[in-house]
């Protein structure tokens, strides 16, 4: 089902895994054992395509086809449907229990079988909390849910599926561990392949094969294969759905439930607008020139777009982003940068700024500006995507909160200045479609191209 060939993975100066070969067969449970820091999680996350490889490849079987999930040549593909439980749960606190379970089923192509969902939630002791947010659960309940979300896609699948579980029994009580053990044997019996990293000798005893990780190498032995298989729910229908579509719907739902992104962006923009208004009361605009007014009109929208997206904070919560990255594969970063960007606010904010800040001017000039104000506002959306991409780049760092993202965001002052120039010319000379340097259309195109360049570099280079 999965084949790891000649894999080498480095973390900093240390080679954690060296020339590792590993196969996962249908109907077996493989337990990865080893001391802390030996590379169990590294192996598991490399199998999921989350970590880059220094050499080797990870190949999954998808029906009759073989898919290179990731290799050291930079190739990366969306993995076939799988079950995945990360060490840090990989869930966002805004989600409800039911939503999370349904999401894990949807992204793995399973239909939303209400009866099966209720049965699984009841069996795992979460039925009474199905409408509660994940953040309201206890640590043990969160772990139960995370493990269930890793197991459920395979449990409802008639086709064999890979299940990757990192320390699944960590935080589970005795009943939970017994339940897990029964499900693992049942999944193996149904033809699925399970790899689990564990320190728990009890859980490891239900494995068909034991793999000891240490010194960068693997040592295999036969497992005890103990435990009575549980009864799994009946398989549900296949439901074709786009993982990217699921991510977009998830992001919108989280934002509508708690509009921290919209509020966090709009508040500083409105404060900037009020301050600009106060400042302009003290300035004689007839001598100040149009550049100042143009800059002040665009400042609220600019502030809105450079604010760190709430999506990134949601994705960093309990490694939620790593879960999505594993499920979506190489397309995750571009999608994050688009749905995390401020797409809606720049347009209304720019018009609001103009209405508030523009003093009395002749009707023809005002009409001309109102007719073309959308142009710099729309280009500001490109700037928003570039800003989100830069925030994502910084979020890749393990201590992202200790990095100064604003130093990279300074590059966006440049398109902002181009847009200011364009608006200033529109205000003084009206819109023109000339293609000379300094013409508003060219300034907007320049701003857009710079933003796209920044976006492309920030999105595609880290995955290169």
């Amino acid at each position, binding site marked *: 089902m999965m084949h790891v060939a000649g894999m080498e993975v480095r973390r*900093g*100066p240390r080679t954690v895994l060296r020339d590792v070969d590993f196969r996962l067969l249908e109907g077996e449970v493989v337990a990865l054992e080893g001391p802390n820091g030996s590379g169990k999680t590294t192996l598991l996350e490399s199998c999921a395509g989350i970590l880059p490889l220094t050499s080797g490849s990870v190949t999954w079987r998808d029906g009759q086809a073989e898919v290179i999930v990731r290799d050291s040549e930079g190739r990366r593909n969306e993995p076939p449907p799988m079950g995945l439980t990360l060490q840090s749960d990989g869930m966002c606190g805004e989600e409800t229990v039911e939503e999370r379970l349904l999401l894990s089923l949807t992204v793995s192509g399973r239909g939303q079988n209400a009866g099966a969902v209720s049965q699984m939630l009841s069996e795992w002791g979460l039925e009474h909390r199905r409408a509660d947010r994940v953040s309201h659960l206890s640590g043990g309940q969160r772990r139960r849910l995370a493990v269930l979300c890793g197991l459920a896609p395979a449990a409802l699948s008639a086709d064999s599926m890979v299940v990757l579980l990192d320390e699944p029994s960590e935080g589970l009580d005795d009943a939970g561990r017994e339940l897990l053990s029964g499900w693992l044997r049942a999944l193996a019996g149904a033809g699925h392949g399970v790899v689990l990293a564990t320190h728990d000798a009890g859980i490891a005893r239900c494995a068909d094969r034991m793999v000891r990780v240490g010194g960068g190498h693997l040592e295999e032995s036969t497992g005890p294969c103990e435990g009575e298989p549980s009864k799994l729910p009946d398989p549900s229908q296949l439901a074709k759905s786009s993982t990217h579509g699921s991510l977009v719907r998830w992001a919108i739902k989280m934002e509508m439930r708690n509009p921290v992104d919209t509020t966090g962006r709009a508040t500083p923009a409105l404060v900037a607008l009020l301050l600009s208004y106060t400042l302009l009361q003290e300035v004689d605009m007839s001598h100040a020139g149009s550049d100042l007014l143009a800059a002040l009109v665009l400042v609220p929208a600019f502030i809105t777009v450079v604010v760190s997206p709430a999506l990134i904070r949601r994705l960093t919560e309990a490694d939620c982003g790593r879960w999505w990255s594993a499920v979506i594969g190489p397309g995750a970063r571009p999608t994050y940068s688009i749905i995390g960007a401020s797409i809606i606010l720049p347009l209304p904010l720019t018009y609001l700024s103009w209405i508030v800040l523009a003093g009395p001017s002749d009707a023809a000039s005002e009409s001309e500006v109102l007719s073309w104000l959308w142009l710099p506002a729309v280009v500001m959306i490109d700037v928003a995507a570039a800003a989100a991409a830069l925030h994502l780049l910084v979020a*890749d760092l*393990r201590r992202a909160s200790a*990095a*100064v993202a604003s130093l990279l965001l*300074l590059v966006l002052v*440049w398109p902002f*200045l181009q847009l200011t120039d364009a608006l200033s010319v529109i205000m003084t000379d009206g819109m023109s479609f000339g293609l000379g340097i300094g013409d508003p259309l060219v300034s907007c195109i320049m701003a857009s191209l710079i933003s796209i360049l920044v976006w492309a570099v920030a999105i595609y280079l880290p995955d290169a």
Partner: protein
Amino acid sequence: MHSLRATGATLTALGLSGAAATLLLGLLWAPSVDPEAWNAPEAYRILFWHVPFAWSSFLAFSVLFIGSVVWYARRSEIGWRLICTGSDLGLLFGLGVVISGPIWGSAEWGVPWDWGDLRLNTYGLLTAVALFLVLARNSQPDGHDTRDTIASVGLFGFALVPITALATTWYQERHPGIIIVETEEAGLAPEILTVLVLGFISFFVLFAGFAILSDALHQMESRLSGLQHRLDEEAIR
């Protein structure tokens, strides 16, 4: 390693002496420029440091770029060391440019910074990128993923360098042209040219000295990190 450090220290001392001599000759020996052509003719003397600072920082960003490419191509330790050295020196010499430039701008233009000048802004950004890299390297745990991210920011920074160079030629607004290349057109007095050349040589030697010292430091850090990991592994056993 010891002889390398001694070479680095010697070159650094030579470079610093040359830079000091450049400053003294620029202030005391170089003739004044045409007072009619400039608002603050005496302020031009800062150019004897400003221009070599700029060229040295270009050199530093080139080292950063090469390091980033090598890291991406091979994930090798030498690539990472070049990134470290390039970002350290890029910050050092970049700060020299963005500090000395506004001093001249204040005297000549009446304002330290011109937001309408593409080259000025691009240079500010290059230095900001170098500052980000140095801060990020010091604040992040060393790891494969950290190095990947920092290398991509390094490449991102270098993408700004050709834009800066093009900006100099195509979009030049208030900033003076590339006088070291256009010697005849600029009509530089021989004494000015002599001091400028001395400045270039001195800053290049200083760059080489700093680069050797910085690389030696990062080699030692890398060895120390390797030893710590061996101790970690032995502690687990």
